């Protein structure tokens, strides 16, 4: 069982879903706080769902308030960085660049990709936490 957990984790790193920051979080776990990483992940997914919703609504309205979008994405990138969500972080960075360039099409495309990565990570982490 332990070996399976280790394999799942290794593949998450190898495939670039997670980076060293995730390991830093695991270092902070101890016997008194054995679920710290899972708790952080839960907060992250709750918070990022809110941000995704806000961005979705903003994009649906059609008027591209790039400043506002960039501000949401700054938050999203921040929390993604803190949890070590590498691929999601990359998409956030790209989105922000499109915002700065005023490229609506780029924003829309990147956001779809971001949502995909986010959903994938969520599933994979659920699996990982279940196994641990």
């Amino acid at each position, binding site marked *: 069982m332990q070996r399976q957990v280790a394999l799942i984790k290794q593949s998450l790193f190898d495939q670039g879903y997670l980076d060293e*920051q995730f390991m*830093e*979080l695991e*270092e*902070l776990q*101890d016997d008194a*706080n054995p679920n*710290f990483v899972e*708790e*952080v992940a839960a*907060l*992250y997914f709750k*918070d990022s769902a809110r941000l995704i919703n806000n961005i979705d609504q903003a994009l649906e309205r059609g008027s591209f308030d790039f400043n506002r979008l960039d501000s949401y994405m*700054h*938050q999203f*990138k*921040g*929390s993604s*960085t*803190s*949890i070590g969500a590498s691929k999601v972080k990359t998409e956030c960075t790209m989105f922000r660049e499109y915002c700065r360039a005023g490229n609506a099409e780029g924003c829309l495309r990147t956001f779809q990709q971001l949502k995909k990565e986010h959903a994938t990570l969520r599933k994979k982490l659920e699996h990982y936490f279940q196994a641990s």
Partner: protein
Amino acid sequence: MAEVMLPEKLEISNDTSSLASPELLHVLAVDDSIVDRKFIERLLRVSSCKVTVVDSATRALQYLGLDGENNTVGFEDLKINLIMTDYSMPGMTGYELLKKIKESSAFREIPVVIMSSENILPRIDRCLEEGAEDFLLKPVKLADVKRLRDSLMKAEEKAFNNIIMHKRELEVNDVYSQLKRAKI
């Protein structure tokens, strides 16, 4: 025998409980991100610090009693050894919070550390110029927190020792003066 008046009246308290005990630094952490709040709180607890976390600069000022309202907590009782604040926050930024703290006579001596996900040199300069103790790039590392804690504890110990030494110096001076007068 004439009363000896010291040039200035110094009150050295025998009561050292007003100094933070060397084991437990109290840190006030400010961040609008719920994920980062959880993270910094854990970093600080793992580093054996007492932590108070708030979600905005406004709340930080409220906690410190600097918001102009009447607070039940008198700041004589409130001992904060360090303030760690995110830079980018809605409403009041960490930079603005830093300025308010440095303007306050009660809290200007408290070291303020700014945290930011963005490595912007003019921003870093501005914060340091305004009196920030340090500027940390997010994600903050446990090593950063431990380094801060260690240097703060050294400073507290030094301040503590200085007070003790000064008290002794005064006592010695006092005895010396009395002896001198007795000889005359």
